[in-house]
């Protein structure tokens, strides 16, 4: 049995085989699901904690500050300390709040982000499930979180929360279209919705290079629209701390607040991961056709490093947006979607279809 950090398919196959050899097939699937669940949960927590720390450091450096630097070397344990604090914070009961929905909302938000994680290809052969409609699944799941946010805003019995929730409702409904359309552009180019095949198709040239200008436009729109969809600045209207104090999670405290907080960062990771997979070749190293020596060096770097590196770069871009721009107003947000993104996107898909039909892409 040979394991390699460049190809996990044999590793996963080995696990599958040994489980199936030891027990009944139903049991084996159950155990596999458990392993995957635990693995993703651990990964989820690590990514969440790291991203919170990364954001604080990034924004601090952009603002001429140092950021957290007291807990641990360079402050890397700051988020863990914060998490421990949040765990001990009292869950303040809200008068006249809808108790069931109020406590349900954070879980819906966090489950939605959890589900998307399962379909992401982290490296060759390293994904929980390779759906043949992977892109479609990711889109469907990543927009589920809004239900939780709406519930949170509604159940809080707070006008600020309600305004925030209604804003995010309008926001997600609008921007889901843009996200979908820009992904469709690439699906047209790739000819498949299966994420593993999309990645495989980018071995010699990522789609952002292969798709000419339409892919570039699709990428810009995707990254902006998904920033809006994950409810981050400059589109953080649902929180809008200068207008709505804290928006939909004004009344949340303790671990429930932590769930919202964590989900926001995980959503950011997910959209960056989708963008990586679809536009930047996922875990594929940067290869140029013909340059054998260069490709060899690039291939030496393990795929999941590629994946995380690309994702990290995109996350940095999203953070950069947040810490530079002022916030949009709700009507401008909708104007941006319906008057700019949607028409551009539709034309973009048509052009892409034309390119694919005429075979102009490499």
């Amino acid at each position: 049995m040979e394991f390699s950090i460049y190809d996990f398919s044999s590793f996963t196959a080995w696990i599958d085989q040994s489980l199936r050899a030891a027990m009944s097939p139903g049991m084996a699937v159950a155990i596999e699901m458990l392993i995957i669940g635990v693995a993703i949960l651990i990964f989820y927590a690590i990514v969440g904690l790291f991203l919170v720390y990364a954001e604080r450091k990034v924004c601090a450096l952009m603002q001429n500050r140092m950021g957290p630097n007291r807990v641990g070397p360079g402050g890397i344990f700051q988020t863990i300390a914060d998490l421990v604090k949040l765990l001990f914070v009292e869950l303040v009961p809200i008068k006249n709040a809808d108790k069931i929905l109020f406590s349900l909302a954070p879980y819906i938000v966090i489950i939605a982000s959890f589900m998307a994680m399962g379909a992401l290809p982290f490296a060759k052969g390293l994904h929980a499930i390779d759906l043949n409609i992977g892109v479609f699944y990711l889109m469907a799941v990543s927009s589920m979180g809004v239900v939780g946010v709406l519930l949170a805003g509604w159940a809080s019995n707070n006008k600020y929360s309600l305004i925030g929730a209604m804003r995010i409702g309008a926001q997600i409904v609008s921007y889901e279209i843009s996200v979908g359309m820009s992904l469709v552009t690439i699906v047209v180019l790739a000819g498949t919705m299966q994420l593993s095949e999309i990645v495989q198709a980018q071995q010699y040239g990522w789609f952002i290079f292969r798709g000419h200008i339409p892919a570039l436009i699709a990428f810009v729109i995707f990254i902006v629209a998904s920033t809006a969809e994950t409810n981050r600045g400059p589109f953080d209207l649902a929180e809008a701390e200068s207008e709505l104090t804290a928006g939909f999670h004004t009344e949340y405290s303790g671990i429930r607040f932590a769930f919202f907080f964590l989900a926001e960062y995980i959503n950011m990771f997910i959209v960056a991961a989708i963008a990586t997979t679809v536009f930047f070749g996922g875990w594929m190293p940067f290869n140029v056709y013909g340059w054998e020596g260069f490709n060899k060096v690039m291939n030496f770097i393990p795929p999941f490093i590629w994946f995380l590196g690309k994702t990290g770069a995109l996350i940095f871009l999203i953070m950069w947006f947040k810490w530079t721009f002022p916030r949009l107003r709700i009507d401008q947000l909708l104007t941006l979607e319906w008057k700019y993104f949607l028409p551009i996107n539709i034309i973009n898909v048509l052009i892409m279809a034309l390119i694919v039909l005429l075979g102009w892409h490499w």
Partner: protein
Amino acid sequence: MKSVIEYFRGIFNGIKSLLVGMTVTGGYFFRPGTTLTQQYPDNRDTLVMFERFKGEVVMPHNEKNEHKCTGCGICEINCPNGSIEVIPATEVTEEGKKKRIIDKHIYHLGMCTFCGLCVKTCPSQALAFSQEFEHAVFDRTKLTKVLNQPGSKLMKGVE
């Protein structure tokens, strides 16, 4: 057609302005030497306040434990908030004259607004500002201070 050109010009100008903004923040991100944060409790040894900084009112004593306060009470009159109380005493001098001296010069730091009138108006320059700025205490009564040290005397030659 013109409106179409306007539409795209608007988009490009908008994107350009956004990129200009991003160069500013990005510029600072990639030049971490510009960090301004002062590591306050760590840099206490090197932290120097400006000499005129109005930290709190003190009464300088010389090495013989003498101060310049004659107990005239001008600072008390001039203080807008009543943060100074001068409790006078009388002392019989060698010539047998009665002389007004201070028993206690009480200073309520918690009421002081650092206007500087007491220091400015003192006829014998008995008061001064120190550069001490760490005033936090756990008990409010500790903010009431007696400025003249115990056993201190009036400096010779100060009337």
